[in-house]
């Protein structure tokens, strides 16, 4: 049986438990009521006030992110990327950063629930194990992607132990299935390749969000090719063909609205055109199969520029191996096959599309597979079912089928964090550890293993999901002692057996500790031979692409929500309030449609429409999206949850429409106010966010910068020691929002909720402004992170009647919350409107234990005071103290604000402007550099580097 109190506590676990208990006890009482007692005996290795960092791994779908967990007094507080993790450059996804809040989610299940009543583990086992023991039919295990060799071994052990056998399927509603299908057809396996944007010169994106927030590695690779030293480059060129406006399209050099149903045809037409320009087809691919795909006809059909498409063909041919063509998960398999063909023709396969170290593919169940399993369950083919990770009760896309499956299963067990939709249908709901409390390993590449270790002891009477399954296996197994009682031991045993290099001179314990310390283990692995494209599969795909009839009604594109993903993070307020990077919508989803469709149907933002497909429908407000392809509707999944105090009722559940290629749209006449974080979308001809094409950049450099020093009435501010400043490269920035979340986590920025976002009272210290320029059918998109500019002659400072905001000797514009009386005059006088006012007592609305996520280095602001970005002054102070303790001066790189540390593109650089050798000094003098609203004479400390685009020809402006 699983022993709850593990007597073999490791030192770390002990400390974690200790710390968490202490912090929890402290966090539950209001600080002004409880006495603050110092440690009588300080635990070894813990210095109160100093943060520790532990390496761990965050998994989401088929991606594993190496992270460092910052821990203060036993509490995990902040996540950042692990710089040992290759390709990620020490960065991580915004959702990974935000997931620390889920650890402290007040709605977490705290003890097992059996038959609807709070219970304990012994009773839960008594309810489950006899049924499993007596099972003559197989048990169904439905999980999310495993991505872990040890988890896979565990599933095998469980299979062996179950008398009636086990049917396991992994389902990730947000991962899509066409990519795997195409890979299976074209290459014979499901290995997923890495897209090496750091190697690509010409990138073609077909309805794929290469630069979505979670694509940390792709963003880093893309950004490395986006900020050249001068107008001569080198700089990559991104072509996007998409129905919905994505961050990829927003950052592209040429974005063409393109119907997703015609994306495969476009890729095949490009292949044909390349072939006609002399690029040989891979063996087995029939030129005749490509013959029906004509670029010019397609251009006419989609209203695109034919010269652009022909230019693209030339570009691809020129780039050769350095080209990359990628298709998105929403596209059918034939589009992916066509991309494989293009990449193979160009030689990009194996270069920019890198499968050399792809891990063994994990067969994810498709929607049809899942429905098949649920139908079998309804028919009584399984003795029991265990639902782990993915929320099948919510996302199975077929509520009736889910109900009948639940009725056909004698025993259903939910292993999860919450009493969610799935748990509500189950006899037993077993609470699982949050990943920050759990052990694990992941294999994102065949030469890389990532370790997950607990950063804190379990907050509640929960068990790690793997450990619950292990407990089942142990209890059912004939040879109970062959399996250890806890998953750490199981993991370690497997590592000793299979990972630890035989004949190593290092003892296993040291090897294990070193791996834990690093969080990742890079292994020697032979690169796999290049994949061979099966020509017949391509021919078949071409035929299939040709046979696609134009869908009736609107083409539907469903994608995971930028914050809530497949719905699993919907209870996380930070992610609900993180604006969608394109629409800037918070707290909910909306169906995007093109301006011309909106005009035709007389719809405006917020008008509710009914979408119907295959007998199912959903009512959802619309948002008029510039750049959307006419006839295409797109919306985010993961909303409309039916459980969770934050999540339930926010947005609309679109899973019932999952799998539908097209929908019909009927206006309902109803109207809903949508909580946009930004409501005005045009720059009105102002130059706050600047963008240059490479040729314009060359021109401006040739002309030189017009030097127009502003007249000054007062002597300039003096900064004797140093002058903190920031540079933001708009060309590198893709607008993913990692900085926004990191700032929120670091600086205790409150969540205000949809009603207040609607009123214009959101609190983000760091925001990303998004502007559209040009015609709404084909807009250019400008993205600009905006935060306090720490002006030397700050207009906010002079108007504060009580000196609550003032300047320090190092150039920081400080805010003394204690002194603030809340006249709000500073906000009026701030031309950037980055100051945020506490209209209510937001901190009092924190439901415990969410308060444990507060950073103790940053004041939690009371109501009635103004707040704003501090350049993470707490980090500056910490770095100064550390430098002083080490007896050395502060050096470049010692201080990194949370936003800069989180930016996967490396677009944010922070440092000392007085040091001429610092990066920020050099960037401040860049010929792309400018300061927003510099003409007001307030001398902001943030230099923006103008966005650069690399359009194909001088006449071809971006997006045209």
């Amino acid at each position, binding site marked *: 049986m699983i022993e709850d109190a593990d007597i073999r506590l490791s030192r770390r676990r002990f400390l974690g438990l200790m710390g968490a208990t202490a912090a929890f006890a402290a966090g539950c009482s209001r600080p002004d009521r409880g006495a603050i007692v110092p440690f009588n005996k300080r635990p070894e290795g813990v210095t109160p006030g100093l943060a520790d960092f532990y390496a761990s791994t965050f998994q989401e779908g088929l991606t594993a992110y190496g992270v460092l967990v910052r821990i203060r007094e036993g509490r995990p507080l902040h996540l950042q990327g692990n710089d040992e993790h290759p390709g990620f450059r020490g960065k991580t996804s915004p959702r990974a950063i935000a997931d620390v809040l889920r650890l402290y989610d007040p709605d977490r299940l705290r003890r097992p629930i059996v038959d609807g009543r709070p219970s304990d583990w012994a009773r839960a086992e008594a309810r489950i194990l006899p049924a499993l023991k007596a099972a003559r039919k197989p048990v169904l295990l439905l999980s999310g992607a495993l991505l872990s060799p040890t988890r896979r071994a565990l599933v095998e052990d469980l299979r062996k132990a179950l008398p009636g056998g086990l049917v396991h399927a992994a389902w990730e509603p947000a991962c899509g299935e066409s990519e795997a299908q195409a890979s299976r057809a074209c290459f014979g396996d499901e290995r997923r390749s890495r897209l090496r944007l750091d190697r690509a010169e010409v990138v073609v994106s077909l309805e794929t969000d290469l630069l979505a927030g979670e694509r940390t590695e792709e963003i880093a690779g893309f950004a490395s090719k986006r900020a050249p030293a001068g107008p001569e480059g080198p700089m990559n060129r991104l072509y996007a063909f998409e129905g919905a406006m994505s961050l990829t399209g927003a950052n592209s050099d040429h974005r063409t609205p393109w119907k997703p149903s015609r994306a495969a045809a476009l890729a095949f037409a490009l292949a044909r055109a390349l072939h006609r320009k002399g690029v040989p087809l891979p063996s087995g691919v029939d030129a005749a199969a490509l013959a029906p795909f004509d670029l010019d006809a397609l251009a006419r059909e989609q209203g695109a520029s034919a010269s652009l498409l022909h230019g693209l063909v030339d570009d691809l041919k020129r780039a050769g191996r350095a080209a990359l063509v990628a298709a998105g998960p929403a596209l059918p398999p034939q589009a992916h096959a066509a991309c494989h063909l293009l990449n193979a023709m160009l030689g990009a396969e194996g270069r920019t599309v890198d499968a050399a170290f792809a891990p063994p593919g994990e067969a994810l169940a498709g929607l049809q597979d899942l429905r098949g399993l649920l139908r079998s369950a309804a028919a009584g083919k399984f003795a029991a079912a265990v639902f782990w990770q993915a929320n099948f009760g919510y996302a199975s896309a077929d509520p009736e089928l889910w109900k009948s499956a639940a009725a056909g299963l004698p025993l259903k067990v939910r292993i999860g964090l919450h009493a969610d939709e799935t748990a509500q249908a189950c006899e037993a709901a077993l609470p699982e550890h949050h990943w920050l409390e759990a052990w694990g390993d992941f294999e994102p590449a065949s030469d890389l293993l990532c370790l997950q270790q607990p950063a804190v002891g379990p907050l509640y009477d929960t068990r790690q999901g793997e450990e619950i399954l292990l407990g089942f296996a142990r209890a059912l197994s004939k040879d109970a002692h062959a399996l250890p009682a806890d998953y750490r031991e199981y993991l370690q045993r497997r590592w000793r057996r299979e990972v630890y290099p035989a004949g190593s001179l290092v003892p296993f314990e040291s090897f294990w500790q070193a791996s834990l310390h690093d969080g990742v283990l890079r292994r020697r692995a032979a690169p796999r031979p290049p994949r061979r494209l099966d020509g017949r599969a391509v021919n078949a795909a071409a035929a299939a692409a040709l046979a696609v009839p134009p869908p009736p009604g609107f083409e539907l594109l469903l994608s995971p929500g930028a914050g809530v993903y497949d719905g699993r993070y919907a209870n996380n307020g930070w992610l609900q309030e993180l604006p969608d990077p394109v629409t800037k919508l918070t707290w909910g989803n909306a169906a995007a449609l093109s301006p011309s469709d909106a005009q035709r149907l007389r719809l405006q933002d917020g008008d509710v429409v009914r979408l119907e497909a295959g007998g199912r429908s959903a009512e959802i407000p619309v948002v008029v999206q510039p750049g959307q392809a006419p006839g295409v509707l797109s919306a985010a999944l993961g909303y409309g949850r039916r459980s969770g105090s934050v999540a339930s009722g926010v947005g609309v559940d679109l899973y019932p429409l999952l799998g539908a290629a097209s929908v019909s749209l009927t206006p309902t006449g109803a109207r809903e106010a949508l909580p946009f974080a*930004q*409501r*005005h*979308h*045009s*720059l*009105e*001809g*102002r130059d*706050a966010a600047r963008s240059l094409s490479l040729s314009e950049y060359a021109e401006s450099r040739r002309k030189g910068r017009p030097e127009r020093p502003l007249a000054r009435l007062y002597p300039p501010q003096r900064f004797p020691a140093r002058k903190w400043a920031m540079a933001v490269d708009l060309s590198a920035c893709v607008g993913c929002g990692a900085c926004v979340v990191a700032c929120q986590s670091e600086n205790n920025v409150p969540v205000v909720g949809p009603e*207040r976002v609607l*009123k*214009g*009272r959101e609190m983000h210290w760091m*925001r990303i*402004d*998004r*502007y559209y320029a040009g015609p709404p059918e084909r807009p250019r998109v400008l993205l*600009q992170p*905006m935060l306090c500019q720490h002006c030397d002659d700050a*207009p906010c400072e*002079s*108007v*504060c*009647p*009580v*000196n609550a905001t003032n300047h320090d000797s190092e150039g920081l514009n400080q805010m003394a919350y204690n*002194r*603030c*009386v*809340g*006249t*709000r*005059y500073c*906000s*009026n*006088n701030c*031309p*950037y*409107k980055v*100051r*945020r*006012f*506490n*209209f*209510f*007592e937001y901190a009092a609305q924190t439901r415990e234990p969410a308060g444990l996520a507060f950073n103790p280095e940053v004041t939690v602001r*009371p*109501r*009635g*005071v*103004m707040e704003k970005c501090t350049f993470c002054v707490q980090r500056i102070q910490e770095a100064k103290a550390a430098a002083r303790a080490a007896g050395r001066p502060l050096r470049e790189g010692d201080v990194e604000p949370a936003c800069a540390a989180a930016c996967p593109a490396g677009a944010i650089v922070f440092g000392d402007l007085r040091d001429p050798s610092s990066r920020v000094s050099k960037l401040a003098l860049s010929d792309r550099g400018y300061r*927003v*609203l510099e003409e*007001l004479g*307030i001398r902001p400390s943030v230099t923006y580097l103008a966005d650069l685009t690399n359009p194909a020809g001088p006449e071809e402006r971006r997006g045209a």
Partner: protein
Amino acid sequence: MAPEATLSPASLDERVLSAAERKPPAAWWLALAAAASCMSLGFALMAYTLYMGIGAWGNNRPVVWAFDIINFVFWIGIGHAGTLISAILLLFRARWRNAISRTAEAMTLFAVVCAGLFPLIHLGRPWINFWLFPYPNQRGLWPNFRSPLIWDVFAVSTYFSVSLLFWYLGLVPDIASMRERARPGLRKLVLTVLSLGWRGEASHWRHYEKAYLLLAGLATGLVLSVHSVVSFDFAVSLVPGWHMTIFPPYFVAGAIFSGFAMVVLVLSVVRRTMRLEDIITPHHLEMMNKVILATSCLMAYSYLVEGFTAWYSMNPYLHHIFKQYLWGTYGWTGWTAIFCNCLIPQLFWSSRLRRSAPVMLFVAVAVLIGMWFERFVIIVISLHQDFLPSSWHLYEPTLVDYGILLGSFGLFFTLVLLFARLLPVIATTEMKAHLPREDAHA
């Protein structure tokens, strides 16, 4: 003046001072009940705001100032007429001021009380409002003397003190007259204390006249300075639409304009209900209406200069915001302000209309509405679309906002009603000084 000729000091005393000695009529009680109810509602909503936070209002970002500051500027403006009438017109020896000065001064005071509430309750943390005052403290912290809000604190508190003194000083001889008429009792005792031992001796009069003149001199500067300083709140900032050099004179003219409108409104009611038509004569009101007409033209001129500045500066931000004044979402408020402030008072070019009670009542109400909306235009429209379009946001007041606005009118009229019953609404001593002497030969 013909009507004054029929007045004698005794009849003046009888008619003005006796009001406080009679039982008030039912209409007065009704009016007081209505005003006090509004006032109570306002105070309740202020308490609610204090409990909930500024979030109870419609204020947002970027419109962090809205009804709170609109109401402040509106009431401060109303509070300009009294001092102007008492001080400047006294210095200019405009005799027509005598009949109306007392009421106008009282209104000034009450309006400043209303105005003073708003900066207080608009604070995020009003319980530490004393940090805005320069008082010695062991932390060695002072207010920021560069901030126009601190100038405001000084300007408004000085104005209030001087207005109070001025009003009270003028009241002393009248209170003494009331004391003489009062029967022994509590009322007499209070009047005795308030009259500061005034016996009407020649030396009293000499000192009184000197002090009154000195205070008039002091107050004259304040009439011009207070609203100039209030306008600095806007002019000194860099918000497009606020940052303009015309603001001080423009604000002062607007303040006198709206203040006179309020005086006309109140006086035309008071003279009717208290039967003072022969003391407060159409001539007095006509003179006031002439001032309204003159300041209305000044307002129109200021609006034109604002528009010219927006155009001539070639400042795109200013240009944009000026377009918003008239053609944006809130454009109707701009047109309301122009219509009420510039067009309607033009009726007063006709002397018949200038002397018509219904017309002047209509114009006064229109001017008050127009001037309130003018402040809405200046504050809300300028704030809602400033430099970075990403932050633009519309403003929508809540019921609490409307309630507090109503409450401030309730407070004002409660005070006016109490004043009308408890204290002499006409400066009888001054009136008497200008009555035709009984022993004079015609």
